[in-house]
């Protein structure tokens, strides 16, 4: 049973223009997104730049104002309620960012950075707080003396871990991770991904994992949604999306990922060109006359794809 539902989430930005600066149009950054989250699962949100994947994450946590739609958390409507600082929702849903450095106050010690959510949500004594911080540092595999240092004294991977420590400080139910490893080098990225999996198993966390990297998402996620221009083009379990991609956009993305098998190069290029040819000729099947993505159609109990009603499913 899911503990949180996102229903028809929309984030629209007005475009102003004309003589009196009136609203002439909207940017449909997020346009009708539905999601459900279960405990202990990882949900991937994939798309290219400008697809609205980050905006979705920010809207869920309350960093973007939701134009319409609702977020139901444990049966309660929490849409646009981020202002109530101490609500359970705010405590239980946390976020980690791509640029962990700029998400930390450079003048604060690690101790105070990690303690921020603790001070907001849990009324702990100084000793208890200190114990909790030590515990958190141990969880993220960092020595205790790290808490007296400042953010700039750590490497990118370490800062990302501190960001995670801050996010898990109040035992959240879900962490929204916005491109958490995109700025990291390959081996550091692997170390952080391993670590995120470890703490997930230990604490039964759910992740909303936002990334442009289909390899990383496949490695991490149980359930994956592909986003394009603010809408889902395809959503399903990992196997559904990767083994049986139905939407042309998903197919394009998948065929474009470089494979570390040099011998498959030529075959993959042929496949890529094949997909591209279909994309050029069968636009109408996947996008309406305004280039907008269709509404999702259910293909199986877990797999949905946005396709024209005239021509459902089928290759």
């Amino acid at each position, binding site marked *: 049973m899911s503990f949180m539902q996102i229903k028809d989430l929309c984030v629209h930005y007005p475009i102003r223009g004309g003589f009196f600066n009136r609203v002439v149009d909207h940017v449909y950054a997020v346009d009708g997104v539905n999601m459900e989250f279960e405990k202990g699962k990882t949900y991937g949100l994939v798309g*290219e730049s400008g697809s609205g994947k980050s905006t979705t994450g920010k809207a869920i946590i309350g960093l973007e104002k939701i134009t319409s739609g609702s977020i139901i958390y444990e049966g309660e409507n929490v849409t646009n309620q981020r202002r109530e600082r101490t609500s359970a929702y705010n405590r239980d849903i946390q976020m980690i960012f791509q640029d962990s450095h700029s998400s930390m106050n450079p003048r604060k010690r690690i101790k105070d950075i990690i303690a921020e959510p603790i001070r907001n949500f849990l009324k702990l004594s100084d000793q208890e707080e200190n114990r909790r911080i030590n515990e958190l540092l141990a969880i993220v*595999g960092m020595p205790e003396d790290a808490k007296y240092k400042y953010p700039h004294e750590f490497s990118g*991977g370490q800062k990302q871990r501190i960001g995670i420590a801050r996010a898990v400080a109040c035992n959240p139910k879900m962490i929204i991770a916005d491109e958490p490893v995109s700025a990291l080098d*390959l*081996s550091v990225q*692997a*170390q952080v991904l391993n670590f995120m999996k470890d703490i997930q198993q230990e604490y039964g966390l759910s992740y909303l994992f936002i990334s442009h990297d289909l390899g990383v998402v496949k490695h991490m996620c149980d359930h994956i949604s592909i986003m394009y221009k603010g809408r889902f083009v395809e959503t399903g379990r990992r196997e559904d999306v990767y083994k049986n991609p139905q939407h042309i956009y998903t197919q394009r993305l998948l065929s*474009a990922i470089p*494979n570390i098998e040099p011998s498959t190069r030529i075959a993959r290029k042929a496949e890529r060109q094949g997909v591209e040819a279909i994309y050029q000729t069968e636009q109408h099947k996947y996008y309406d006359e305004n280039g907008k993505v269709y509404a999702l159609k259910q293909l199986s109990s877990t797999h949905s794809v946005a396709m024209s009603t005239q021509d459902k499913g089928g290759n």
Partner: protein
Amino acid sequence: MASSENLLTIRNLHTGFRIKDTYYNAVDDVSINLNKNEILAIVGESGCGKSTLATSILGLHVANNTKVTGEILYKDLNLAGLPEDKFNSIRGNDIGMIFQDPLSALNPLMRIGEQISESLVYHTKFTKEQRVERVLELLNQVGIPNPERVANQFPHQLSGGMRQRVIIAIAIACKPAIIVADEPTTALDVTIQAQILDLLKELQAETKSGIILITHDLGVVAEVADRVAVMYAGQIIEEAPVEELFNNPKHPYTRSLLNSIPQMNSENEKLQVIKGLVPSLKNLPRQGCRFSSRIPWIAADAHEENPVLHEVAPGHLVRCTCWKHFDFEGAEGGQLR
């Protein structure tokens, strides 16, 4: 495949940056050669010296705090320490460069056509009409629709993929024998990346030029390179033809890198990776095997005292001997430092 006709030979290249009054070598004794009609990939993580190597080849460093020694042999010239005016007749003419960020690499105030034709002004005797013609031809060649219009546009009016195509057009304007591409697709979305890589391959096949591809992305390497050199801490630690490197990696670092890529079939497993980071410029170990501190469970006598590259298979070179004793077993339990 690659012919063995040599285009560029780098021997014992050192590039040092001055910090206070000491020079620290970001590129430390690198020797490698580039053949005609070949894509040579230089792979490594940030701080390994790969971008410094690229800029050394074009002599783009600021002279008064950089020291380049060793040999970069092109035709009969040693590019290391070549005077500016002589270098200017090489840059853009014999060696073209492609940069990472297609927006910042273009002058925001100059029209696309003008930016491309600039190198033609200095390296050819073309008339103005011939230059315009060549610019349109180039834009066409890199797959830009409607070249006449694009030539009159400014960079901000183009998409990221289009801008990168313009950068490539600039690099190939004078049909250089060598192209140095520094992370050419890192800033792009995957679908655009695939298009740009295909374009690079096509252009290379057409012109038979040699490409040095600097990247951190092993997927990109597997997709386009003919030969690969892996850099760590300013040195090349492994060099091999591309299939050999991916199928038969030897050095612990190369193996760790390959294992840390989330694979399409590695779901839910832990990624095998050697913990730690590339040491920073000031803290580079200057003696012994530079990777030894990352794999402390390997006995000290497994390393060479002065590690050199050994040929383990035709064209496959590995530095140090520690790889023979390496496995991932000991890697567990360490802390990320």
